[in-house]
């Protein structure tokens, strides 16, 4: 197992390096010069061209792309992602600050998606071809089909404005506001993120459970006189959850996509909003850091998926390839 993990980590480093080169090239090719952006033409007074050039030199933008990359990667391996062009703050610091809110939103969303999606999917499979099943299937498709930003707008309108139950935006009231306040701010965005995600989970869970329900060993289990609860809970569920763990782990990074939109609408100070602001401001260091963070998360989740699979499925032995 250890050898497997080490091997996979080694591959991951190569993949990360590849992604970083690709990104670096892409970002450098982006139209729009961050140095120009930093010297706002409408409020700057003096020799703007010189000021822009000075900025460019400060940022090393006058160097060749290769030199810039070597410098960046050199810093990167030391855990230094450079400084934000717009706030001059260390990217690592900014991202760490932004990570908490995003993790809170994504984590809660994921928990909601799992708590809703998986039981509903399993129930639908067990009540196959009944109203419950049809209802769950159709509702899950509806959840997949309605854009979450649309739901978010309506959610803000209904729960924030009309009913006044929940705050309309932000991660907390000014100055913190304590646990209850944080939870109140979290409910709406996390629920919308979670429910959007629950749609696919219902379908995965249903399919996985249906697959298992057709298996012979369930008949065996029943033939031993086991109670239905144990047959379902112990034999069926366990087997159905194995593929789900993988699916869920591998899909964690895609939560980021949902988070970008939700954070934007709810003014959530997370990494998604940071990334969008960085795109607009051509804040390369932030953008690079963000995409690298997503890449690390992607590789990590792939690894976690494989390891988790090996841990919970005795048939899999990690020897470098899946059985």
């Amino acid at each position, binding site marked *: 197992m250890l050898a497997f993990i080490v091997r996979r980590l080694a591959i991951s480093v190569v993949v990360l390096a590849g992604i970083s080169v690709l990104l670096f090239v892409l970002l450098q090719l982006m139209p729009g010069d961050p140095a120009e952006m930093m010297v706002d033409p409408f409020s700057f007074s003096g020799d703007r061209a010189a000021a822009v050039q000075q900025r460019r030199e400060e940022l090393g933008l006058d160097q060749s792309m290769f030199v810039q990359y070597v410098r960046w990667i050199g810093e990167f391996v030391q855990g230094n992602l450079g400084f934000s062009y717009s706030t001059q703050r260390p990217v690592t610091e900014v991202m760490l600050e932004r990570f908490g809110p995003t993790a809170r939103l994504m984590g809660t969303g994921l928990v909601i998606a799992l708590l809703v999606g998986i039981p509903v999917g399993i129930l639908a499979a067990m009540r196959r071809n009944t109203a419950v099943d049809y209802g769950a299937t159709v509702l899950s498709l509806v959840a997949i089909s309605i854009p979450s930003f649309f739901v978010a707008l309506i959610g803000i309108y209904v729960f924030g404005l009309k009913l006044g139950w929940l705050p309309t935006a932000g991660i907390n009231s000014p100055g913190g506001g304590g646990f209850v306040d944080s939870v109140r701010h979290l409910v709406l965005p996390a629920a919308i993120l979670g429910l959007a995600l629950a749609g696919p989970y219902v379908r995965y869970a249903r399919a996985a459970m249906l697959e298992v329900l057709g298996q012979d060993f369930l008949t065996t289990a029943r033939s*031993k006189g086991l109670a239905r609860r144990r047959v379902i809970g112990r*034999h069926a569920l366990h087997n159905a959850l194995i593929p789900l763990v993988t699916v869920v782990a591998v899909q964690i990074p895609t939560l980021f996509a949902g988070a970008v939109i939700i954070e934007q609408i709810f003014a959530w100070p997370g990494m998604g909003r940071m990334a969008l602001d960085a795109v607009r401001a051509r804040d390369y260091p932030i953008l690079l850091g963000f995409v690298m963070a997503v890449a690390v998360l992607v590789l990590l989740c792939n690894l976690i998926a494989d390891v988790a699979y090996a841990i919970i499925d*005795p048939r899999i032995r990690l020897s470098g390839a899946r059985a």
Partner: protein
Amino acid sequence: MSEPLLSIENLVTEFRVEGGTVPAVNGAGYQVMPGETVGVVGESGSGKSVTVASVLGLLPSSGRVVSGTARFAGRDLLAMRERELEQVRGRDIGLVFQDPMTALNPVMTIGEQIAESLRRHASISRRAAATKVAELLAEVGIPSPKERARQYPHQFSGGMRQRAMIAMAMANRPRLIIADEPTTALDVTIQAQILDLLRRVQREHDAALVMITHDLGVIAEMTERVVVMYAGRVVETADVDSIFHHPRHPYTRGLLRSLPRLGERRDELPAIGGQPPDPRRLPDGCAFRVRCDLSGGRAECGFQPALSEVAAGHVSACHFHGELAEEGVA
């Protein structure tokens, strides 16, 4: 004569399909005496397995028992609530299935799966159960049973798995073992070992054995009495000698004819002329008429033949059983 251990009568089971129902068992019935070995033989779709599933409450959700009785040790299984039936399954009746790879839960250890059955029916400690599991595994001929108990099914060979399956079926010393095609999925060399094992444990535990198979070789080797099923009905029942030497139903005779030589087994049942019947479109009257070499368009075939005792302990459902009595086996 003692009471039969299992007595199935007039069982009708149907499956729900799109646009209606399909009968899978059409009034089948047979008896199993304590300690007896009964072979149930028939083509795929003849209802031999569904009959067992019906009486044990193991039908899939689309199946339903319409009518009939199934007495086990005097109690009607079909009238039991699920809870009561669970008490019978695994404790009084043990089952062995065809494919031990798919019939075992891949993510539970062999030991857990056997212990589960033990602990379900007797309140014993985890530790005691583990000891018992090892004993059982040893009994079915699995070496180093303690270590093996901690392994998963995929770490067992096919034959080993089937041994474990038998250990599981035997765990609570049932009075009846039902083996549903227990050797079909196995290598020929292993088949004999498994049959021997089944026979041995049956003897040692003094249990009755129902052997469901399409392999007449297995029937000849293992069983005392034979039940022949066709299209959801029992068409002939007799002791094994009578079946093999004096079949009184054209279907049985067909089966025997297609059997090349005793002792030589085949994976597939040799063909009798024609297809097994489509349960949705059973012919009117005798279900076997289209494939029957005696029918020849005779008027009797328009009626469903009733089971009648044609000799002592020999029952057949054929209008023309008399004609067969004279022929003997070719």
